[in-house]
């Protein structure tokens, strides 16, 4: 896939997730994995939710946008809270 198309695909998935889930201050670390987009999304909106519930939210949003095409557009996206993602920033293990 040409570089510009890859970036367009990443931007589109970010936009869809941020809009449909109304994510608070979302950050994304997405990459193209073949024809699919995979990676991580970070938002405090996921706080207090089990991972399986976070995934259900993500896939509900993607299916609402793309229908059955969603599994061909998206691989796996891990959903983090900022605390989970930033746990190691500026710190060292004992």
């Amino acid at each position, binding site marked *: 896939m040409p570089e510009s198309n890859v970036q367009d695909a990443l931007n589109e998935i970010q936009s869809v997730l941020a809009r449909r889930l109304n994510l608070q201050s979302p950050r994304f670390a997405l990459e193209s994995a073949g024809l699919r987009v995979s990676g991580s999304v970070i938002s405090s909106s996921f706080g207090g939710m089990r991972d399986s519930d976070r995934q259900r939210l993500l896939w509900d949003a993607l299916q609402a946008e793309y229908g059955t095409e969603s599994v061909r557009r998206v*691989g796996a996206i891990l959903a983090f809270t900022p605390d989970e993602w930033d746990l190691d920033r500026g710190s060292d293990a004992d």
Partner: protein
Amino acid sequence: MITYDVFMPMGEAEYRKGARDRIGEAFLLLQQEAFGGSVYLAGRGAEGALRAVVWKADPEIRQRRKSFDAGHDLRNLLTNVRNLGLLRTGGPDDSLIADVQHVARLWYNNMRFASARAIETQWYNLGEISGHRTFKQASREFYDSCSAVIKRCEALCQNRMSRTP
């Protein structure tokens, strides 16, 4: 006859991406109530994520001066991660340790050959499933534990170790 290694050599990036794919596939199977496949793939993803951390943090493994013979025992892999000084016990990594223990108790390498019924029976014998706790509930909690392990390893790879040479 000349033979070629047609398989991509494994390294930190491949282990990470594979782990992410496996947990993604495990969720799709969980939703379809295909619990045997879901728990097998989720556990394999946890193994791959721990392998990614060890690979990235151990320069001798990375430079292939030491073989990576951790096997498929998740507790051994966790010990390797701990020995590399990456975990903070008595704090934020206690939940990672608990999650790995949970997964390692229920998952085994030869689960790849096991029927869903065989896994359900084994989990029943381990007390993971009972009259009040279904295979579906146990599979969902297993997925959550595997996902937590993979996410913690992903954060370690992306943030903490990105600062190390």
